[in-house]
């Protein structure tokens, strides 16, 4: 790859627009994906993330906007002429073909790989990559759900696509297979350096594998950033509340600091700058200290392995979720009083809804 080529974004989606009747699925949606980058689009169902992915695949017509891949405008190109490898949410292997034939299908349609031997070799290589070369001769109905999605991944990657499109490929699988396959997708994606767009409604999935995560809301991007930045520095209440766990607590913002529970913490840009607000607190931004005099009382403690989650009832009956190291679990038994010490970690403060 020349340096010139690598400086060019692999994918540019420019002001995409699409409405289904009164529902606006994409509202001036723009996104750039760098070469070899894995971008995840995260959002609740109906936020337009799948529409964006399908538009890139050519499976969804647009009302307006432009799609540029590797410098070429492909907005009006048919799906079959775009080089996109796609893995679908539902099982999409061709039931009448073996795993190997499925993987070969895309190759068979391409002129440069018409030779049967080369095709079979490539298919086996791809199946090896997903750890299923021993199952090459099996039909989809003889494979488990996770295996089927692996073969689908091998099939999508076999054609060496410009962009790999993952449309919630893990949501039909059970939890253990899901996290395993998620890590495997990332490993393979890094190994091949394939530019990837990954659509999911599961924040753990998105934060776990992506270089950057875009949070979508009502057809456009609310924020796009690295997983850490998205979590630590959300630019809006929507992102703060959608990514990770937050407890809203009334506070008073004075001079870019939120005053609450007898303490104060800095607020993030985009927050309410002055006056009463709701601070969106992360469970790990607060440390608990035993305090017999306190009116704040531990309600429940749940053990999560290395950490435990403590739910504290404040004097005004609000419930606050706090994360504490597991070795402190005996200190905070239900019914005991606790005080708080805040870390100097900025929080997002949103306006109080009228």
């Amino acid at each position, binding site marked *: 790859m020349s340096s010139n080529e690598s400086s060019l974004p692999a994918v540019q989606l420019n002001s995409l627009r699409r409405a289904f009747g009164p529902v606006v699925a994409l509202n001036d949606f723009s996104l750039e994906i760098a070469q070899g980058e894995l971008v995840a689009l995260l959002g609740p169902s109906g936020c337009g993330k799948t529409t964006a992915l399908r538009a890139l*695949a*050519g*499976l969804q017509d647009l009302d307006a906007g432009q799609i540029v891949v590797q410098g070429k405008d492909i907005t009006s190109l*048919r*799906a*079959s*002429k*775009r*080089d*996109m*490898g*796609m893995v*679908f949410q*539902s*099982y*999409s*292997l*061709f*039931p*009448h073909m073996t795993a190997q034939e499925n993987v070969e*299908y*895309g190759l068979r*349609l*391409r002129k440069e790989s018409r030779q049967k031997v080369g095709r079979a070799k490539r298919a086996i290589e791809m199946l090896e990559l997903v750890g299923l070369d021993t199952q090459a001769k099996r039909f989809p109905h003889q494979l488990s759900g996770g295996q089927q999605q692996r073969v*689908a991944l091998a*099939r*999508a990657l076999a*054609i060496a696509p410009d962009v790999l*499109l993952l449309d919630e490929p893990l949501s039909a699988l059970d939890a253990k297979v899901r996290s395993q396959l998620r890590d495997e997708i990332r490993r393979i994606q890094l190994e091949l350096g394939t530019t990837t767009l990954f659509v999911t409604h599961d924040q753990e999935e998105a934060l776990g594998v992506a270089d950057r995560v875009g949070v979508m809301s009502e057809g456009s991007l609310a924020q796009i950033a690295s997983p850490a930045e998205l979590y630590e520095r959300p630019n809006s209440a929507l992102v703060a509340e959608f990514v990770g766990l937050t407890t809203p607590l009334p506070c008073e913002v004075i001079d870019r600091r939120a005053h609450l529970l007898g303490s104060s913490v800095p607020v993030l840009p985009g927050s309410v700058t002055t006056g009463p607000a709701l601070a969106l607190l992360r469970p790990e931004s607060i440390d608990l200290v035993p305090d017999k005099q306190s009116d704040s009382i531990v309600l429940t403690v749940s053990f999560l392995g290395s950490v435990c989650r403590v739910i504290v009832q404040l004097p005004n009956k609000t419930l606050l979720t706090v994360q504490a190291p597991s070795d402190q679990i005996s200190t905070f038994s239900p019914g005991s009083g606790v005080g708080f010490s805040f870390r100097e970690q900025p929080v997002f403060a949103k306006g109080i809804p009228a």
Partner: protein
Amino acid sequence: MKKLTGITRVWRAVILSIIGFYMLLPIVAMADFSTRAGADGGRNFDSWAAIPSAPGLLESIAVSLQLALLAVIGILVLLVPTMIWVHLRLPLMRRPLEVLCLLPIAIPAIVIVVGIAPIYRWLSQFFGSSPLSLAFVYTILTFPFAYRAVNTSLRSVDVNTLAEAARTLGASWPRTIAGVIIPNIRAGILGACVISIALVLGEFTISSLLNYETMQVVINLLGKREGQISVAVSLAALIFAFVLLVAIPTSGKKQEVG
């Protein structure tokens, strides 16, 4: 499968044998009647042997078989591609198409004949009086049954996702339909063909009213003069249709596994 209790099993056997008896009785009676020799209870196969020499019979069988073939071609060329396209690309047209395809079963045969007789007078200018022109109306007559069979298959697989997968892999629409969709609804298509063949081979009303000599029309004529031969042919036709019903889906299945 769930293990059946004794009573359920007995009931099942009873019901099956009642239905089996009900269905088989006329067939046994036909076999009995067609092999009778005289009033003294002797048996021979004279009436079966006479089938080839019965006037017009073999010709009419040939006509009916050709009509069945043409109706199948009509289903494969007209109905199946239309249904696939509507299913994939025009979901709003699914209901109208279904209603349209079911119409022939809702309209009595006599009404159909009244309606199409003028069309057939006009058609005869192009096709002469060939009975094969019945293929047009027969193709339409088979739609309700063929539609059901194909529709069930289309719904049992996620054809939309399969089509999208094929297209992202670079397949054009024709390749997607021929290489991915059709192989996965083959059972339904085969079923549609079998039903169409059985329907055409058994059709009497329309061909009789339009004065075409198909197998059933000739059997009916024959029945008035040579009762035994007519019954022998009817039975042979029944067995033929039955063999077809069993053979075609089985051969389809074998290919799928192999």
